[in-house]
Structure formats: C-alpha cells, structure tokens
C-alpha cells in the first residue's frame, strides 16, 4: 500500500470516527413496541411456543379480511353511553360510520369509533364530528366541536383530525382534543407525539404537553403539563394576543429546563432580531448537542434545529416516563 493510500485510509477512518453512533428515528417507535410486548411475557414466563405463530396467523387472516372490508369507506362505531346519533339515526349498540356521516353526542352520550384497523377514538358527550376519509392511506375526521380521545398505533401521518383551527396529525400517539363552539381548541398528548398544523405554522406536541389552538391563528406554543402559569400565560399572550417581544421575554424569564420544548418552538416564532436572545436562553436551560451552533439556530437551519429537537424531545419523554414510574412506585 502506498503512502497516498495510507493517508487516504487514515482520513477515511478519521471521518468514520466522527459519524454519530446514534441516530434518532423520526417517529416514536415505542407505541408499536409497547403494543407488541404488552401481549407477550418476557422469555422467563413464556410457555406454549406453538400458540404464537398460530395466533399470529389467525390474527393476520382477520386483519386482511377486516382491511378489505374497511376499504369500503366505513368504520365501526359502538355506543358507550346514552343515545349517540350516527348519520341521522340513533345508535343502539353497534353500527357503521360512513364517509360523509355526522356523529353527534348529547350531554349524556358517548361513542367509540374504530379508526380502520389502526386505532380508536372515544367521542365524549356534547360532541359533533364527521367522517371525511376512511382509506388505509388516509384516516380523517373533522371535529366541529366537543371532545375526543384518540389512540392510534400506526406509522405517522395516517390519522388526521381537521378542526376550525387546523389539523391534528398523528405521529404515533394517543391524545385528547377539545374544541369549543367558537373553534378554540386544546390538544393534550398522552403518548407519543402529535403535530398540529395550520397554513404552514406547526407545533409538535410530545407526551405530557399540550397546545392551544385558535381559528385564524392555528396552534400556539406547546407547554408541559406542569409548566409555570407565568410561562403558559406569556406564551398564550405571544401566540394569540399580539404580546410580541414583551411576551416572549416574559416567557424566557419564566421557563425552566423542563420547558425546553416550549422555548424551542418559540425560537421559530419570534422575529429574526429576537432569535439570538431566545437561543441564548434555550442553550442556557438545555445545552445544545454537538453540531448545533448559535448562528445556525438563529438562521433556523433545519438540520440543526432537528438535531436540537431530537435531544429535547428525548429528555422530555424520559422525564414523563420517570414521572410515571414515580407514580407507580410508592
């Protein structure tokens, strides 16, 4: 091997050493894993190994049959309480929810919708929603008002809920979404992540956080469930009441390290001249990963912001899981 070859190999291996050993998947894979391990014991407790392939085959046949059926543009729906109305008729037990139908619940009614074969939606009392699309590539509801609790286990961007203030896009998750009659909404995520999108403005809401939405303005800035009231108020003022730079400064002052999700979103919302201050506060609260620079963040470099987001969301996820563990362990 020549000296030139040696140098080339050294250079290559040096560059290989700089490659990241870890790459974060773009979607949360945990809900799918949890769904699968929830049905299985750890190896120590497993018996009857033949039952697994047999059951899997039976489930596969059922799933294939159901998928063929569900492609017809209807979902199953069942009454949970009271007398829900589906397509203009009272739902006694179970029925079909057709594309174009409205489902309405009064103050004492509740219903559960099967979202194709990827999840389910519980419709709370006082709600009205319509089935917009029921295809394997697009599962879409429109929530006029009321409250729903959605739980979906599927690849991202298959389940959508349109509202008067934008669209909730499932990224593999569970969440509640409440809309009042004026079109103001609140989305609260209980597993995974949800994106809320309105005319180019988007918010990514992780487990344990929520976001308010307003018609004509779209999503505000996500806040953790235990965020300081001063932070939540400042972010609401910034997003919906024209609070501007003053509200942003109040938000920065009130934020804790646990509020990095909020400040990361704020970075992309403030005026260009204010981004430096937002970045400095964010970096102080939650140090950026290697490769993220102040200049890049202020210019909203998408790769750098994504890298920053990946570590922020991981920490937020971990915090929520530890909180859940803490609740279980006395």
């Amino acid at each position: 091997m020549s000296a030139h070859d040696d140098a080339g190999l050294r250079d290559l291996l040096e560059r290989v050493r700089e490659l990241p050993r870890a790459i974060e998947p773009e979607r949360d894979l945990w809900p799918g894993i949890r769904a699968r391990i929830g049905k299985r014991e750890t190896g120590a407790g497993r018996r009857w190994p033949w039952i697994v392939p047999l059951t899997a085959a039976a489930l596969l046949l059922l799933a294939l049959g159901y998928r063929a059926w569900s492609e017809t543009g209807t979902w199953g729906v069942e009454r949970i309480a009271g007398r829900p109305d589906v397509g203009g008729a009272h739902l006694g037990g179970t029925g079909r929810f057709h594309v174009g139908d409205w489902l309405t619940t009064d103050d004492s009614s509740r219903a559960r919708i099967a979202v194709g074969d990827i999840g389910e939606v519980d419709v709370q009392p006082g709600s009205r929603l319509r089935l917009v699309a029921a295809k394997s590539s697009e599962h879409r509801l429109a929530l006029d008002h009321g409250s729903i609790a959605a739980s979906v286990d599927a690849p991202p961007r298959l389940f959508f809920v349109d509202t008067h203030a934008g669209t909730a896009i499932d990224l593999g998750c569970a969440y509640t979404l409440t809309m009042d009659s004026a079109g103001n909404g609140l989305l609260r995520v209980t597993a995974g992540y949800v994106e809320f999108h309105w005319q180019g403005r988007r918010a990514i809401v992780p487990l344990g956080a929520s976001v308010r939405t307003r018609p004509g303005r779209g999503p505000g800035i996500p806040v953790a469930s235990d965020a300081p009231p001063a932070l939540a108020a400042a972010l609401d003022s910034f997003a919906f009441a024209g609070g501007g730079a003053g509200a942003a400064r109040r938000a920065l002052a009130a934020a804790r390290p646990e509020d990095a999700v909020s400040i990361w979103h704020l970075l992309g919302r403030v005026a260009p001249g204010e981004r430096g201050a937002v970045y400095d506060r964010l970096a102080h609260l939650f140090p950026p990963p290697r490769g993220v620079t102040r200049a890049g963040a202020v210019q909203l470099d998408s790769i750098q912001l994504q890298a920053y987001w990946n570590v922020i969301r991981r920490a937020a996820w971990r915090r929520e899981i530890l909180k859940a563990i803490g609740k279980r362990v006395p």
Partner: protein
Amino acid sequence: MPAAPPTADSDLLLVRRARGGDESAFADLYQRHVGRVYAVCLRLVRERGRAEELTQDAFVRCWERLDRYRGESAFGTWLYRLAVNVVFEAGRKDRRRETRVAIEAEPERREVPLDAAPAGGGLRLDLEQAIATLPEGARQVFVLFDIEGYAHDEIAAMMGIAVGTSKAQLFRARRLLRERLDS
C-alpha cells in the same frame, strides 16, 4: 437537562425490573438505546421505514429474551448484537421469499438512491451517502467493522460468510468509499 448517558449498572437494574414485567423499566431501556439500535439498522438496510420496523423487532425480541441476558457484557453490547442478528435474519427471510417468486437481482448491482442515507450535515452527510451507495455486502461489513467495531470472525458468523470474505468486502468498501469521496 439532557438524559444521562446509559451506564452498565443502571441498565442492569432496569433489566432486572423489566424481567419482572415492568414495562416502564423497559421503556427507559428503549429510550437509552433506541438511537444506537436504529442507527445500525438504518446503516445496514438503508431504508428508513424498514429500519424502523427492524428496530421495533429488535426491541420486541429483546423483551422476549431478557432472561437470556446474563450480564456478562454491557447490556448495550448484547442488545446491539441482537439487533444486528435481527437485521440479518430478516434479510435472509426476504431473500428466500424473493427467490420463490422471481429470479433474484444481483444485490450488489442495485442502484441506491442518495436520499436513502441517514440525515446529517456537511461532510458527515457526504460520508453517510457514500456508505449508503456501497454494494450490500461491502456496506454491511464496513458498518459492522469500521463503525460498530466488530471483529471479522464475529461478522463472518453473523452474516454467514467466510472470514476471508469479510476481509475482502471491507477492503472493497474502503477502496470504493475513498474513490467516491475523492471524486
């Protein structure tokens, strides 16, 4: 604050709890190690969706086989090895299926889209893209030897090839990478 790096001790405690059926403990193990598992799956198979599936498969198998982890190596080492095995087993199944339905295309001649590479920036992106364009066998040996740090005998066992073939594939991968990065 960013999550603390995983340690062998804390992993072991979580493994013990997970063995008892504690899903929260297993969720924590997932969160600690998913980046490494996904990275090796993505670099071995190139396709993001497939890598996500294999990552999930690896963690499900990990859950099923937790009782086999004896603590003789770091949990991460055991898990990443398990993930690599999941990738190669899936590849063998895919190939068997393909041969039943069609004449298999020569894998090493397949064109690879550049956007199949993992996201990154600057030079790193160039290198990731170049790795993604390597022929399958050469790429897999390169990923396992130069990035993941496995020895040739380990790679040969995992891939079902001779040690000499592993060495030859590594030589080929490095040569192709230098050519592509220099051009």
